[in-house]
């Protein structure tokens, strides 16, 4: 076990007093930027970057990556407590996290999320440790056709397994795709759908869309439903933190399945966002309590969080070994690598052993530090839920407005965010699902680029999607997931000709 020896050497670099201090500082700063609106991990890391220029590369990356872990955990806090996801990958956490917190169990929701996130991250790091070289090879096999197939699989798993009426899901997807098309098109280089607004050339930022759809949309619904102070009388209970974490092993099937999905999507370039959505969709289908998803189910929190962190961690590997950043934060870190005088790419593992294995060892330690710190803060965050609605509501509006403005200091973004709030409200009232809409906004344009690049390569022949085993398997799996609900429904109809109509309405109630 060569890698094990290297890892032990890495630990001797990572576990020193100055590096542990850097980790704690990084994680705390990360939690702060994760919780604060509109800051987020990429901005936080770029703000910190100039401070690291004088440092040893390995110390610098430990500081920055610890900040990244902190921000990932911090981002889940706002998703669960206020229904405002800070990163695209924590959208799926809101589906069950927010209902559970609103139900008076914010401590349980937060502790469950953090516990499963830590598990996912751990599986991701173990994978990196033992399969580094193999993983790098897998990523190389992915050309445009394979990229498209992976995105297709993510869409299919969500559409086929979501609870909403399929036609409503398709409508939501279509709206999402058109929003994703706004701005400059990579393949043709021309400007699309800006409707005469010059500034729209930059496209619609994900943050602007979700702050409106989730934050403001939810607020409007809450105001209409019952305009009263809905303070949650949750007791601050330290023991509940440990109880919630202690209950996690009971959901070991969900944990393992989600970690597997997360690692797979992290290594293949699907990324954490696609991973968390896919994991949620699949859990909903296979969990025994799947029909209650969307009302505050434990497995509805475990599945996206585990997959998100497993994918986020294993996605750092392509960044180091191939130089493709998997996320905005990874891109900033890569910029840092160049400035410290390191070149991400295949040679990093050979030339810079201390750096690479120091970083990998710090992922183990950094995540442990991060989870310990966030678990300690759970009761503090949970206490926020006791603030009465009349105080929290304006606060949410402020968070959303400031968050939308600070994406690119643009007033237009604030207006768009409020517009998305109305869209979110209408979607909720008309039982349209928000998740496919968000999924299409986030990975819709990537899927489109990949499809058109494939078409350029094959000169317009769809045969490219069946050109080798890898892409054929992915496409077939996608089609199977897409058709699964249809087949199941047909089978049910065939067995029981008069299906009770009440079932569909019951399902519509839990649409997320």
């Amino acid at each position, binding site marked *: 076990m060569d890698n094990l020896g290297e890892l032990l050497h890495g630990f001797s670099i990572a576990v020193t007093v100055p590096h542990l201090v850097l980790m704690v500082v990084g994680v705390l700063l990360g939690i702060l930027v994760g919780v604060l609106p509109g800051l987020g991990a990429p901005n936080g890391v770029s703000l910190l970057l100039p401070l690291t220029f004088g440092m040893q590369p390995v110390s610098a990356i430990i500081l920055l990556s610890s900040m990244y872990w902190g921000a990932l955990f911090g981002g889940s806090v706002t998703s669960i407590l206020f229904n405002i996801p800070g990163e695209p990958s924590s959208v799926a956490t809101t589906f069950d996290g927010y209902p559970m917190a609103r139900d008076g169990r914010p401590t349980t929701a937060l502790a469950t999320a953090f516990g499963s996130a830590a598990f996912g991250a751990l599986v991701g790091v173990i994978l990196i440790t033992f399969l580094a070289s193999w993983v790098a090879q897998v*990523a190389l096999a992915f050309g445009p056709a394979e990229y498209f197939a992976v995105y297709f699989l993510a869409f299919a798993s969500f559409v086929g397994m979501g609870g909403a009426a399929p036609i409503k899901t398709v409508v939501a997807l279509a709206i999402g795709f058109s929003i994703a098309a706004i701005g400059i098109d990579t393949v*043709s280089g021309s400007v699309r759908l800006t409707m005469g607004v010059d500034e729209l*050339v930059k496209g619609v930022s994900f943050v602007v869309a979700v702050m409106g759809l989730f934050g403001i949309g939810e607020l409007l619904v809450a105001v209409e439903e019952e305009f009263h102070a809905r303070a949650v009388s949750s007791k601050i209970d330290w023991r509940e933190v440990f109880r919630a974490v202690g209950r996690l092993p009971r959901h070991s099937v969900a944990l393992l399945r989600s970690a597997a999905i997360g690692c797979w999507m992290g290594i293949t370039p699907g990324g954490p966002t696609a991973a968390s959505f896919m994991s949620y969709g699949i859990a909903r289908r296979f969990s025994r309590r799947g029909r209650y998803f969307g009302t505050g189910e434990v497995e509805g929190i475990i599945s996206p969080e585990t997959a998100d962190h497993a994918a986020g961690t294993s996605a750092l590997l392509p960044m180091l070994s191939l130089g493709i950043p998997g996320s*905005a934060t990874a891109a900033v870190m890569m910029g840092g690598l160049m400035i410290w005088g390191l070149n991400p*790419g295949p040679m990093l593992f050979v030339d810079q052993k201390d750096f690479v294995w120091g970083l990998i060892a710090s992922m183990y330690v950094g995540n442990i530090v991060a989870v310990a710190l966030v678990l300690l803060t759970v009761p503090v965050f949970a206490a926020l839920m006791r603030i009465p609605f009349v105080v929290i509501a304006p606060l949410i509006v402020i968070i959303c407005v400031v968050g939308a403005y600070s994406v*690119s200091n643009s007033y237009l973004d604030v207006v768009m965010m409020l517009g998305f709030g109305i869209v979110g409200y209408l979607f909720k009232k008309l039982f349209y699902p928000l998740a496919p809409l968000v999924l299409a906004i986030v990975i819709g344009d990537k899927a489109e680029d990949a499809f058109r*690049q494939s078409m*350029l390569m094959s000169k317009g022949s769809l045969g490219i999607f069946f050109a080798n085993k890898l892409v054929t398997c992915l496409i077939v799996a996608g089609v199977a997931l897409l058709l699964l609900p249809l087949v199941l429904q047909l089978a049910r109809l065939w067995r029981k000709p008069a299906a009770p109509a009440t079932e569909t309405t019951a399902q519509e109630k839990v649409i997320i």
Partner: protein
Amino acid sequence: MGRTSIFLLSAAATMLAGTMPALSAWQPQKPIEFVATAGPGGGTDNLARAVQNIITKHKLVEQPIVVVNKGGGSGAEGYVYGKASAGDPYKVIFGTSNAWQQPLVSKVAFNYTDLTPVAAMAQDEFLLWVKQDAPYKNAGDYLKAAATGEFKMGGAQSKDTDEVLTRMIEKAGKVKLTYIPFKSGAETAVQLAGGHLDSHVNNPSESLGQWRGGTQRPLCVFSPKRLPQGAKVTATEGWGDVPTCVEQGLDIKQYEQPRTVWLPGKVTPDQAAFYVDLMKKVQATPEWKDYIEKTSQVDTFLTGAEFDKFIKEDLEHVKQVAGEQGWLVK
């Protein structure tokens, strides 16, 4: 000299400045915003942050500097922002030749004439790259093999520098290439390493790690003479060992990508002069040399009439290629 006399002197200077504005140099009075027309981590972003870092370290400006990224729409977001900030000398826009090339080929709401040019600070070179185990040893072999018309050339963005160069290669080498646009040079490099493309024309820094790692190698550089030797990249070769494309019979003498610095339109000559001077000071520091070397760029400094001339010439050239390809927007 005592405190009081310094105070008196500066008071006198202020009064003089007040009465004779033409002679006084403009100085910034509030924080300055550096606008990178690229996302975090890209080449343009690295330049803006390197310049910010040098200025802060050497205290070249009293006021704090913040870097913001406006990379949406292949950089158009940042330029449109610059146009909208006309008359504001506290916004400095960092870009590439995109500033004048993009308005030619897509309907973006700005032109380079809406901005005040400050300088072109560094030039990125272009090379022709193929997969490590490709059979061709030089550009001549490559062109012969490409004559089948089945070759796939990757590049960053559409109708931008990479595609312009691809079209120039087609013309000079009398071949037909299928151009596949990706989001960035780094992504393109990985696609070549995976064997999904036949070649690309990345800048040195975009493929440095891949060359060293033995997944791809450069055939030739689009430059009038070979690059400076520098340190070895692989065990046996460095940038200076890469032949020029002209040497190998691919007749494209020069193709470079300048990194450009702009102010919004309608700023005073004083204000523009302040930034030209500032960038000159930045360029004289050892940290700048270090940055240039690490990113394998060529150190240049074009400003004023020289910069104008450069833009005009490049513009003519791109117009010609874009016209032949039918890319020009009305």
